[in-house]
């Protein structure tokens, strides 16, 4: 009889954050564990794998108890029947590709349902690689070997820890079809850790959304992603802020001055607005740049003094989301991680928000 649900309630303290997560995951299809880097996705996966033993909590896999605080229960990793695929594949360097696969096959639970080795090797396209040394493989090839190796143990639950994270964009595209094969042909219940919206929307049936060690949302992939403005096929950087202000000076040459706190923004306006009218404007996060000093000799005319109130990971690794405080209102900016480092941005920094475009918001 196959298990129906993975249930967990966990509390674990780490040096820099605390994991405090509970969920009940149906054991079918792919469940994404989605959230920014540092939100505890990998820690959660490691706790479920049995690599980390949390302070308190309970994990049940169907009828089996893997972890419990009272009465104390603990099932070590090698008895859980979980297959783990790591970010960096973790192939054994002292074994060939075939040796790595044999290692898993010899230790498989023969009573568990599994697929014949030739099918797995064919599905992951490994025939030509069997005699190679793992060190000579590309990143994508290594991950295919790692996936095949895991399948050969006949796992009851697959745990994939950002299997695409170590690959460049082109290689990601090459490996994604194999992950889809994994889902359709082998149908092992899977927890898939990722911070990439495109991957999640393509592969996952449901999503556990994590932030700061907690699961903040869960449900069907499209529902959860849309609730956070992260639908598939839509650029996640369409995120925008709404600022409230009042018309300062009526339009001249098609522009309107809007007063936001102490600052004034000039907006293109097709309609006539009387001074004093309260209005809202919408500013796309990707159209907000940040400067440490007020720049002159620049085409952007709209600059507001602001204070950095939070730095968060953006759904894609190269970017960071910077939350700014402008006179008590919130303005979001998405800039590259490189820029954040170059400017040395930290919470509390006084900066200038350069607004490239803004529209009136009904």
């Amino acid at each position: 009889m196959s298990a129906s649900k993975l249930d967990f309630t966990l509390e674990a303290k780490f040096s820099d954050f605390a994991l405090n997560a509970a969920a009940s995951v149906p054991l079918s299809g792919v469940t994404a564990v989605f959230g920014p880097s540092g939100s505890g996705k990998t820690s959660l996966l490691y706790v479920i794998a049995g690599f980390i033993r949390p302070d308190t909590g309970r994990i049940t896999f169907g009828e089996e108890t893997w972890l419990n605080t009272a009465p104390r229960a603990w099932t070590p990793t090698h008895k859980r029947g979980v297959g783990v695929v790591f970010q960096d594949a973790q192939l054994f360097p002292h074994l060939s590709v075939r040796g790595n696969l044999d290692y898993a096959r010899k230790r498989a639970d023969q009573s568990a349902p599994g697929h014949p080795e030739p099918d797995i090797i064919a599905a992951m396209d490994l025939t030509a690689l069997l005699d190679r040394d793992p060190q000579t493989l590309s990143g994508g090839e290594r991950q295919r070997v790692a996936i095949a190796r895991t399948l050969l143990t006949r796992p009851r639950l697959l745990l994939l820890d950002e299997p695409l994270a170590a690959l460049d964009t082109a290689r990601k595209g090459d490996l994604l079809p194999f992950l889809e094969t994994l889902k359709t042909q082998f149908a092992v219940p899977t927890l898939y850790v990722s911070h990439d919206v495109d991957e999640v929307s393509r592969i996952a049936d449901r999503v556990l959304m994590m932030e700061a060690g907690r699961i903040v949302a869960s449900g069907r992939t499209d529902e959860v992603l849309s609730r956070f403005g992260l639908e598939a096929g839509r650029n996640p950087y369409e995120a925008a802020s709404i600022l409230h202000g009042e018309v300062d000076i009526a339009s001249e040459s098609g522009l309107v001055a809007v007063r936001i706190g102490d600052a004034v923004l000039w907006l293109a306006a097709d309609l006539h607005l009387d001074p004093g009218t309260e209005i809202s404007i919408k500013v796309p996060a990707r159209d907000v740049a940040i400067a440490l000093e007020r720049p002159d000799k620049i085409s952007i005319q709209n600059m507001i003094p602001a204070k950095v109130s939070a730095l968060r990971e953006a759904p894609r690794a190269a970017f960071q989301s910077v939350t700014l405080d402008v006179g008590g209102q919130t303005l979001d900016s998405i800039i590259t991680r490189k820029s954040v480092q170059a400017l040395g941005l930290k919470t509390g920094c006084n900066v200038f928000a350069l607004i490239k475009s803004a529209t009136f918001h009904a």
Partner: protein
Amino acid sequence: MPDLSSLWLTARLAFVTTLVLLIIGTPLAWWLAQTRSRFKPAIEAIVALPLVLPPTVLGFYLLIAMSPNSWLGGFWMQATGDTLSFSFASLVIGSVIYSFPFMIQPLQAAFEGPVKQAMQTAASLRASPVDAFVSVAMPMSARGFVTAIVLSFAHTLGEFGVVLMVGGNIPDRTRVASIEIYENVETLNYADAHSLSLILLVVSFLTLLSVFAFNRKFPAHVRL
């Protein structure tokens, strides 16, 4: 022609010492590499002590511990009917302690790093901890094992102070090569001192050469 029995005794001592060190050093090095215990620094300091202590200090304490009046010496006396000090066993105990860091430190270094994560990977492939240690940690740490074994062996070959303190200078029993050389020099028998010294020099060089050649030829792990 020098008496070669001292060389034979030295070789036996180095072999037995290395074997004992391998048996007790492997689990201790593994524990040191894995533990987050607050006692770890203290244990590491104790393991490294023979590197800095004068051999006479170590030898002096060992001599006291092995005397028939002490619990260890007394226990040995009861069990074997012989004194522990000035026996081959006392040489082994002294050498094991004296060469301890030469076994522990290369092994501990090999067990840290990639081996740790490889053990987790092995567990996720259903290998029990013992299975994973033998099938993953040991082959991945092959270079560490070779270095530890050869250094322990070579270091025991060259030992002088500790063995002199605990073993004395009894022919065929505790007179190892280094002591015989000292004895030959004292009695102005320079010819024998020369031949024995040359043999020790060449053996030590070849032993060390084998480690460096192995480390150059093979990666950190053996390919199975």
